[in-house]
Each structure stands twice: as structure tokens, then as C-alpha cells.
């Protein structure tokens, strides 16, 4: 039991991402309201973004803004600074996620105009008629 707890505490960032991801996944699959599905998708994407970002963190790491001349002279101690690459990547991923949400909301608007509801069951009922 203690071992398990130690594992969870040592890598708590990954556990948080897994839990968030499952919440998002459940909302996408289980919820019947289309907006809730979309929000679930957002949580899902955020979980992955958090995983990447937390992977770059180091204990006591400084921000990765360095003096070029000092680095050229003394070299660089990679253990002292936070890895900036995952953060940069996730900026792109956030842009992707925002644009998908935008497109999806626009499509939801059209669905609402067409059927007058965003509940999946009610839409399917209207389609069945």
C-alpha cells in the first residue's frame, strides 16, 4: 500500500492528467448533450496539454531565458533550467484546440437552428419522424 502511495505521490502530475482525461472521455462518450460532449473534448485536450507541460518541469528550475554571451562563454547547465520545448509545442496544441472548438461551436449553432435543440435524444427523435 505504501509503495503504491509512493508511486502516486512521486508522479502525481501523470495521475492528474489520467483522471482529467478520463473525465473528458466520459463526457464525450456518456453525455447526451452536444455542448457537454464538446466541453468533454476540451477537457480531454487540456489533460494532454498539461501532461506535456508538466513533463518539462524540473525541481528548482529557472525560466529558460538566458544571456547569449554568458552561455557562449560558460556553457549551460541543463539541470538548472526548465525545458521550454514542451511549452512551445503546447502553444501550438492550444491553438489547434481553440480552432476545433470554434468550428464545433459554429456547427452546433447550425444544428440548433435546424432542430431547435442540442439534446442528442431529441434530435434523433425528430430525425426518426
Amino acid at each position, binding site marked *: 500500500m505504501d509503495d503504491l502511495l509512493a508511486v502516486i505521490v512521486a508522479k502525481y502530475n501523470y495521475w492528474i492528467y489520467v483522471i482529467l482525461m478520463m473525465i473528458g472521455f466520459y463526457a464525450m462518450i456518456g453525455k447526451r448533450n452536444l455542448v457537454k460532449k464538446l466541453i468533454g473534448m476540451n477537457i480531454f485536450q487540456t489533460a494532454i496539454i498539461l501532461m506535456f507541460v508538466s513533463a518539462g518541469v524540473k525541481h528548482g528550475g529557472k525560466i529558460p531565458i538566458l544571456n547569449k554571451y554568458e552561455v557562449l562563454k560558460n556553457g549551460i547547465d541543463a539541470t538548472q533550467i526548465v525545458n521550454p520545448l514542451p511549452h512551445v509545442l503546447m502553444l501550438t496544441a492550444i491553438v489547434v484546440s481553440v480552432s476545433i472548438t470554434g468550428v*464545433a461551436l459554429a456547427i452546433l449553432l447550425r*444544428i440548433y437552428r435546424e432542430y431547435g435543440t442540442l439534446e442528442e435524444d431529441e434530435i434523433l427523435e425528430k430525425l426518426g419522424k
Partner: protein
Amino acid sequence: MSTSNLHIYVMAVPLLTAFFVNLLGRTSKVWIAPLVVGSLAFSSVASLVLMGRVMTSGGFSYTVGNWVPPYGIELVVDHLSALMLVLISVVALFASVSALKSVEQELPGREHLFFTLYLILIAGLMGLVLTADAFNLYVLLEITSITTYGLIAMGKGRAPLASFNYIIMGSIGACFYLLGVGYLYLMTGTLNMAEISQTLPVIGGGAAVATALAFILVGLWIKMAFFPLHGWLPNAYSLAPTGAALIVAPLMTKVSIYLMVRVMFSVFSIDYLFLQNPLVDAVIVWGAAIAIVCASALALAQKDLKRMLTYIIVAEVGYMVGGAWLANSTGMTGALLHIVNDALMTLCLFLAAAAILYRVGSLDFDKLQGIYRKMPITMAAFTIGAFSMIGVPPTAGFFSKWYLILGGIEGGHWEFVVALLFSSLINAVLFFRIIEIGYFHKDGEHHGHETITEAPLQMQAPLLICAVALIVIGLGSGPLVEKIITLAIPVGL
């Protein structure tokens, strides 16, 4: 214009033209057709020149902005990606000529919006086949997906709903891919495909690497609609505007399969995939066999030509996934050749469907009675496409299926061979049913159909060229395999 940057121009020209289509298309519609066709014609010619160059002097890699690979994004042009570039630009060119006509009919006043998305989609697909960076691939995957969501949602009636379902499924797929790449990045510290594949043997195949492979594969399978992850595809593709289906149906699934092959052999290795984990490929080939049988059976139940074609696409995805995982070079040849052939025959059938839809207004089987007499040229081309899908020699479909079956026998995967033969039989039933309805059934009660004539030349010309290409490629399969595809197969298979 220096020719060493040719592949950048192939991709950049449609991308930049997209903005001009949007700007100038707002003022006047006359700009749209020359811009779209002109840019895609340029890309086709340039990609053919590039293909010639790769065939004479071999593949090369290109660093964007002179940032050396581990730091910058690397583009790789080898036999396989050059072949895919040619395929994408040529298919896009033919599809656009016909799409111009059907979009004019279906989306009047919104042509400039449609073709803006259309060209960005093409540029995204070209980027996908060129990139050698795992994260860049994710971004381009989402560019193609977002444009496709928009294109599909432009359709009538239930299309926005189908598009929304596609968004949810497509995002799960892309997120799984990103998660897999994240695991690989955590293990290897790099995103460049070549670097990852060099580092992976050193760190060995732990649970994290296996998880990464599983996430990436499932993500790509969702994107390519590999049965049973195909749920989004039939609705999305059959409800999309005809012009969108013309480009999305032949290319999207095929490019995803290319990506799977890329990830399998450029990121992971033959050693890791087939030798260290021998059961995995057998399981996937079984899955592909089941996918082929189930999707073919579902195609039988359809009452609409376009919906039937979408289920055939799902079955064809099974062919290529199975072929790639047969773990021998014959199967791989079949899979790669089938990417080319399937893109062309799907294009041919969808072009024919678009031409019928343009004149008849519906693709219900009941409405197709006597269609052969009214649209003989269109239906002749449709028949060639259908024969290729069934696998009748000398059409292209026969040769790739032949390689796939030989590969299945060589690998001892009899279930895959049986599934392929079963699917060919089902395809024969499906298409002969349409030929029977169209050729022999008289449409006594439908007097309104008297006015139906041949489709406009703008829709017939690409269709006929495509049908002829199916036979030419079929007859030229030997040189195509010898000169390009054998060189595209990873060494050691």
C-alpha cells in the same frame, strides 16, 4: 525558381492560392475556376518533375529555414512521399474540375468559401506526406481535419450533425496520436522521426514505448476509419456536399494509411514491430480480415449509391492495414500499390456518382433505372471503376489485390486471403446489382426522366481520364512496382 525547393512550391502554391480564392472570389466568381485549377495544375506538374528527380537521383531531406534536424523541422522527399505528392495533386486536380460544376449547383454563392477550405485541405495533405517531424505531423493532421469538418458541414440537412460526430471522433483520434507522441518524446527527448528511431533501440522496448505505439496506431485508425472505429465515416462522407466527398473520400483515408506506414517504419522499426512482438501483427491482420468482411457485409445493406461506396471505402481500409502488417515485402507492395489504385478508383466512382447526382438529383437505387441509356459515357466509366473495385484484370484494382493475396499466402495468413476473396465477391454482387438496375430495368413509371442527358463535359472529362488511367496504371503496374514501390519499401522486409 530553383528546383531544389520544388516540393515547397508544390505545397505552398495551393496554400497561398487559397487566400486569393477567398479575396478575389468575393468580388467575382470568374476568378475561382482559373485560380483553383491553375494552382493544382502547377502542383501536379511540379510534383511529377519532383518524382522524376527522385527516380533519377534518389530521395533527399530538406531543412526548413536551415534549422538542422533535431532543432528544426525536417521534410523528407523519398520515393514514397514523392509518389503520394503526385497522387494527391493529380487526384485534387481532377476532383476540382468536376467539383467546380457540382458546387455551383449545390452551394450557389458560397463557392469561394468552399474552395478556400478545399485548397487548404490539399496543402495540409501534401504537408502530411512530406513532414519528418512527429509533432508537425499532428498539427498538419488537424489542419486537414478542421478543413474537412468545415467542408462536410456545408452539406444539407443532417450534414452538420454528421460533421459534429466526426469532430468528436476525429479529435479523440488526434489526441491519442498526440499522447503517443508525448510518450515517445518523454522517452527519447526528440520529435524528429529519424532521431526517435535511432534512440528507441538504445532504450529498448519498455511498456512506455509499447503504449506510445498503441496510442499512435489507435489514433490513426480512428482517422482512417478502420473497422470498428469507422462509425463517423459513412454519414460524414455521404452527407457532405458532392464536391467535398470527391476530394475527401479518395484522399483522407489513403493519406492516413500512408501515415501509419510512415510511423511503422520511420519511427519504429521492423525489428521492434515484427520480431520483438510477433503476436501483434498476427492480431492486427486478423482484425483487418474481420474489418473487410464486416464492412463488405454492411455495404450490402445500403440502398443509396453514395452510402454503399462509403462502406466500400471502409472495407478497402482493411485491405491496406492488413497488407502493411503482413510483415513481408509482397504484402507491403500490395498495400502501397493499393493506396494509389484505391485513391484512383474511389475517385472514378465518386466522379461518376457526382455526374449522376448532377443530372438525376438522387442516388437511390430506384432512381438509377435505365441510367445506362441516358448517360452512356458516364456509366461506361463507372463500370470501369466498378470492375477495378471488384478486381477484374486488366484494371488497376486486380494487380494490387493480387499482390495482397500473394502476400497473405506467403505470410500464412489464410484468413486475410479468404476475407479478400469474400470482399471481391461482395463487390461483384454490389456493382452488378447497380449494372442490372441501370441497364436492364426500364423506368416505365418515371416519365419525368425523359429530360436526363449526359453530364456536362466539365464533369465527364475528368471521369473519362480517370477511367482510362485505371486501365493504364493496371497495365503499367509492373514498371510502377519495379521503379518506385520496391524502392519505397523499408529495407529488410
